[in-house]
Structures are given as structure tokens and as C-alpha cells.
């Protein structure tokens, strides 16, 4: 049964936004090997910053993108430098750092709850706990502004990361820091600075996604919990150590989550639509079972696809 064109439009948009979020997560894991379960909160922070600037200063969230990206990047650096790095330096295992990020996630949710309550009770913003700013969006030739801007941002992100990694000394330093951190240190690369900048970029990308997502989905204090599974599924699908894989993973997870559910709904009945959230989980389970290194581990050699080992 043919699906409505709007389904593919929204699926593409969701995939683009998820790709940006997953890229940031993969970047921080690639460098510091910390699975950051608080990553979704940088998205929420970006969304709330855009909302606050709009409510207080009537700034369209599109114009606040640069500021929110910088602030979210700075907050991510703060989390890394103040909390995670000291623990890592003391020899905390990865699982402990992961649990710490879970705690940071809860702290952020509480923080956003306080912000929402203040905005609701003091400033009388009735939608502070549940805001959607799609009414501020524009359209060109029937295409929503958020779709256009998101695609441009994603393409710009991919190009920028490619140039950064392949054409700059920093890129070389990052590659060395990822592959052999101790050796990189001995040849004078400031590995910790590389890690810090990766968290800055990761947080900025999440903030960027947050600035854009307010035009598509409602945001509240618990928003991060809505997405963290999908973000991880996208990163895992793409291969947790591949930035470009995260882009691909985000597109696959994002589009399939909507398209697959809609298609099944058209065949089996609307009751299936309530189980949309199961799609990224099932994909993640499948990847972990059959392709744990992600889709970027697949290499084509002599016409036969095989996994890289």
C-alpha cells in the first residue's frame, strides 16, 4: 500500500537530525571511549536555549544556532573536563564512566525541570514544559525551512569533519590520538586537547540539532530520554568508531523508524503505530548480534561483501 509522501518527508528530516546527534556521540566515544548517556541532554539544552531566546528576545531559533552550538559545546567540555576526565585519570573503568554519564543525565533532566518550572510559574510561559516552535518556521516551494536548513547543516557538518580530519594538523593529531594515544603524547601531540575539542564539537553538534528539532518535535525536560536509544542505535549501526558511519546510521535509523512503522501500520492495522519506538531497539539488537562493528565494517573485496576483521 502506497504511503503518504509526507511520511517520507518527515522520515528524512528525522534521519538528518538523528545523524547530527549520532555524529556528536560517536566523536566523543571515538576519542575518549566514554559512552555518553547524557548526550541527549545537549540536544535538550540547545532546544531550551533557542526557546528562551525566542520568548525573551523574540529571536527566531534559526538565528540563535551559532550561540546555542557554542554554549552546548562549552557545556559538553565542562562535563568532560570537570567530571569525566578526572575520573578517567584516576583509573575509573569505562563502565563506571558510563554510569556517571547516566547520573549526569538525571541531573540535567532535573535542571531542565527547574528551568521549565521557573519559566512556567514566574514568567507564565504556559508551554515551557512542552514547546514546539513550528509556527516560526518558513517554507520554500512547499519544503519546510527546517528540512532545508537541517540538510544544509548536515552536509556542512560532514564536509567540515572531512576537511578537519584530512586536511588539518588537528585531524592528524586526532587520528594519532585515537589509534595510539601514548605514542601520540610522546611525539608532542596534546592528546587531552584533542579530546577536549572533540567534546566541544560533539556538544556543538548536539546543540545544533536541538536548535533545529524545536521546529519539528515538542521538547520538554525529559526530551533526552526520548532519543538516547535512537542515538545509540544510530551510532552502533554506523560503527561506534566511525564518524561517517554515524551519519549513515542516523539516516537509516531515522527513516526506517518512521517508514517501517507506517508501512506495517498500513498492512497490519493502525495498532502497530504505537510500537514505533521498538524499531531502533530491534535494529540495534540485530547489529550487535550479526554485525557488532557496524555497517562501516563491511568491505567490498573482489565483488564479495565481507566484514572487516
Amino acid at each position, binding site marked *: 500500500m502506497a504511503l503518504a509522501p509526507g511520511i517520507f518527508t518527515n522520515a528524512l528530516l528525522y534521519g538528518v537530525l538523528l545523524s547530527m546527534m549520532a555524529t556528536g556521540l560517536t566523536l566523543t566515544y571515538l576519542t575518549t571511549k566514554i559512552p555518553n548517556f547524557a548526550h541527549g541532554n545537549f540536544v535538550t539544552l540547545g532546544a531550551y536555549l533557542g526557546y528562551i531566546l525566542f520568548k525573551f528576545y523574540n529571536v527566531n531559533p534559526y538565528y540563535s544556532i551559532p550561540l546555542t552550538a557554542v554554549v552546548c559545546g562549552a557545556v559538553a567540555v565542562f562535563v568532560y573536563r570537570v567530571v569525566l576526565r578526572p575520573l578517567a585519570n584516576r583509573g575509573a573503568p569505562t563502565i563506571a564512566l558510563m554510569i556517571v554519564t547516566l547520573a549526569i543525565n538525571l541531573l540535567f533532566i532535573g535542571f531542565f525541570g527547574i528551568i521549565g518550572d521557573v519559566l512556567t510559574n514566574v514568567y507564565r510561559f504556559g508551554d515551557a514544559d512542552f514547546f514546539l516552535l513550528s509556527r516560526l518556521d518558513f517554507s520554500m516551494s512547499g519544503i519546510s525551512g527546517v528540512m532545508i536548513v537541517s540538510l544544509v547543516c548536515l552536509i556542512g557538518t560532514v564536509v567540515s569533519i572531512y576537511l578537519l580530519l584530512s586536511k588539518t594538523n588537528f585531524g592528524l593529531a586526532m587520528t594519532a590520538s585515537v589509534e595510539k594515544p601514548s605514542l601520540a603524547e610522546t611525539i608532542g601531540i596534546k592528546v587531552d586537547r584533542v579530546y577536549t575539542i572533540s567534546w566541544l564539537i560533539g556538544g556543538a553538534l548536539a546543540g545544533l540539532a536541538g536548535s533545529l528539532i524545536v521546529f519539528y518535535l515538542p521538547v520538554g525536560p525529559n526530551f533526552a530520554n526520548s532519543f538516547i536509544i535512537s542515538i545509540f542505535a544510530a551510532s552502533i549501526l554506523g560503527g561506534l568508531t566511525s564518524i561517517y558511519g554515524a551519519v549513515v546510521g542516523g539516516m537509516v535509523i531515522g527513516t526506517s523508524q518512521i517508514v517501517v512503522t507506517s508501512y506495517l501500520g498500513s498492512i497490519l492495522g493502525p495498532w502497530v503505530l504505537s510500537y514505533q519506538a521498538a524499531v531502533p*531497539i530491534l535494529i540495534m539488537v540485530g547489529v550487535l548480534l550479526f554485525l557488532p562493528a557496524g555497517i562501516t565494517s563491511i568491505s567490498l573485496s573482489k565483488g564479495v561483501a565481507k566484514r572487516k576483521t
Partner: protein
Amino acid sequence: MKTGVTIGVSVIIGLLIGAAVVYAAFPSTTTTSTSTITTTVGGGSTITTTIGGATSTITTTVTGAGSSLGTVTIGAILDLTGDQADYGQLSKSAVNMALSDVNAWLATQGSSTRFALNIQDDATDPATALTDIQNMAAQGIKIYVGLMTTGIATNVLSYATANNLVLISTASTGTSIDNRTLGDLFRIVPPDNVEGVPFASALTQAGYTHAVLLVRNDPFGTGLAASFEAPYTTDGGTYDVVQYTPISTGSYDFTSQLGQMQSDLSAAQATYGNSHVAILALGDAEIGVALSQASTFGSLLTVPWFTNQVSSTDLLTTAGNNALTVKLSGFQPAPAASTKYTQFYNRFVTATGSVPGIFSGLAAYDSIWLAALAILACGSNSGQCVQASFSTVADNYFGVTGWVQMNANGDRTATNYGDFGVQMVNGTLAWVPIGYWDASTQQITLTNSTG
């Protein structure tokens, strides 16, 4: 590979265990006559209000012991946070106003009895509400107001029954407990088994022979849908239903549902004609998100939308101009026209900056008066006595919501429903009364069209 298999199998087992755990655990009667209602408590105290146009006198006497009860605390369990926080916060303002009015009235009558409130936030969560009531019951509180969802009311009812507590719900309307035996729960807002009927009347009378329903998949939404489907089908209407699951984080993406609705709409329009199909969205404030996201599915904005979320300003903020485009309208229990209502309305707007609705202030205000009057009538804070006398007290009470008449199950009887539409007022989208549904004739009368 082995590590991947181990991790994958562990995740599957974890998901199955989690799923198993989760599975086991989830009319206004618009009068046209002037009447004076006199309520007498403990020997001569009176409250007088005037309603309507012609003159008649109704005297109601609630006798009490007359002696001081000291300070009696009423518990208020409200949704101050969570999904219904906007209703809960306004209800909090209303119960505080009512408390002040009751105590002021007692003071003018020379009574030394006073009432106090213990307000607790249940975060729109049934488990939290149960904890709240248990804590307050330990302090000797017997009478509770609020309990603003059917899930919350249901979850605390058995505890209340076991401990002789009285629950006065100000916003529970779910049909799952319609047929309960009269006990400790009284719902002073009309239940959903009535609320769907005005929608059926509206669609039928406007010529919409087919409806595409967007329904929140919980007892509230499905009960409301059922109350619409039966009379609508009886009137010859047909419908499609698309459900969505409530999400605690509130981050709704209705893409799949809207796509299905667009398909259903196209098929219905091909069968019944473009002008004979409408959309009925039954849920909470997230309906505004669906309406906003419907922009991607253009044909959905070419038909009228109806919704139960009348008076939700959050919905209008989220939906934006789409609410105007689809001529969004809906029904809500309508307070009887009276000076009491008008006076309360003006005070409430001045105090809160918000308009009171049946679930966002009006019923909460009446609940405090009803609780106080029942306690005074009993001459004690006895839950058993209040439970036995509440229906009689309510039947003789004219509040800001009109006559509060209860049926045999402890639910409010059917009242008229106000028909509300969306219009631009002073540059802001607002709900505006456009008519009413008469419970006795089941007819819609429009007084102000949205165009």
C-alpha cells in the same frame, strides 16, 4: 563474534524480562429564571446567589451540630507537575480561593470552625498520588479533593475505601469506573460517557457522515472514543480510528498516525464526498502537536477538526494558525449562567491571568465548598458520614459549575456542553464560545460561528 552474540542475547533477555515486568505491573442546565438558593448551616448561616432572569426561591437546609469543629484539614491531591500541570496549577489557585471564601463565610457567621488545605503534587502519576494520600491519611485527613485523572482516582480508591476516606474528583471522567457501586469516590465533572455525545450530535447535524478519529490509547482516550462511536453509529455515521500511545517525555511524532489518517481521509472522501468527512482528535494537549505536524500532510488541513481539548491554550500555542485553518472546535461542560459564576470568573482572571475551565478551576472551587458543607452537615470529619451525606449535600448545592447533581454511582449527571471554537482575539488565538449542546434535546445551537 562471540562477544557480539553474548551482548545481543543479553539485550534480548533483558527486553523480555522488562516487557514481562511492565505487563504484570498498568447539561449545564441553563436556567432562564432567577432563583435564590439559601444554604443554612448550624442554625441560620446563609449563602445567597442569583441565577438567570425570572424569580423563584429554593431553600436548602444543611443542618449541623452547630458546635466548633476547630480546624479541619482537607487534602488536595493535584497535578501540579506532569502532563496536566496547566490544569493542576489553576485548580490550586481555585481551591485556595474557595478555602478563603469558606473561612470568610464561617467568620461572618460567628462560627469558630475553620478549614485548612494540605495540597500535595501527584505529578500526574497514580503511584505518587497513592503515596500522597497515605501520608496525609496518617495525619488524620479524611476528605480529599483533586484526583484529576481516572487512573489516579482508581489507584487510590481501594485504599480510600479501606480507610473510610472520601474522594472528590474534580477532573476524572474515564468510563472505566462508570458502573462502580456508590462508595467513597465522587466525581463532580460529567464522565466521558456523556462527553462523546455532543461530538456525535455536532458531526451528524453538520452533515459529516464519516469521521477519522485520532485517539489517545489510554482509558481516557478510548473511553471518550467509545462514548462518541455509539451514538454516532446510531445516527448512521461511520468512522476510522488511529491510535497513538501517550509518551511520558511528551516528545510526540505523529508522522505515522498522520499518514494513516491521510489515507483514511482520502478513502472516505472518495466514498462520501469531500464535504462529508471530518477529523475528531481525542487526547490531551499533544493534539496541538498533531495539528502542527499535519502541515506536512496537506489534505488533513482541508477538513474540519474537532477536539475535546477545549480551553487548552497550550494546544493553540503549539498548533498555531493550523487551528484556524481547520476551524478547530470542541465541547466542554458548560457552567450555568449565574452571578456566582460571573463573580468567580472575574476574580479568577484577576488573580491568575487565566480563564477558568471546568477542569481548570471551576470544579476545584466547588469541590472545596462541597467538602466543607458535607463536613459541617455531619458535624464531624467522619469519612463514613461525609460519604453517606455527600450526594444529598451536592444535590442541593448550586456552585460556580451550576447544580451539582449526582447519579446513583456518585458521578455528576449530564449537563449542557458549551461549544467552543478558535478565533483570533487581539492578535492571539483563543477559544471562544460559539454555541452549546442541550442535554435534554441533544441539539446543537450555534450562537457565534467561527466562519
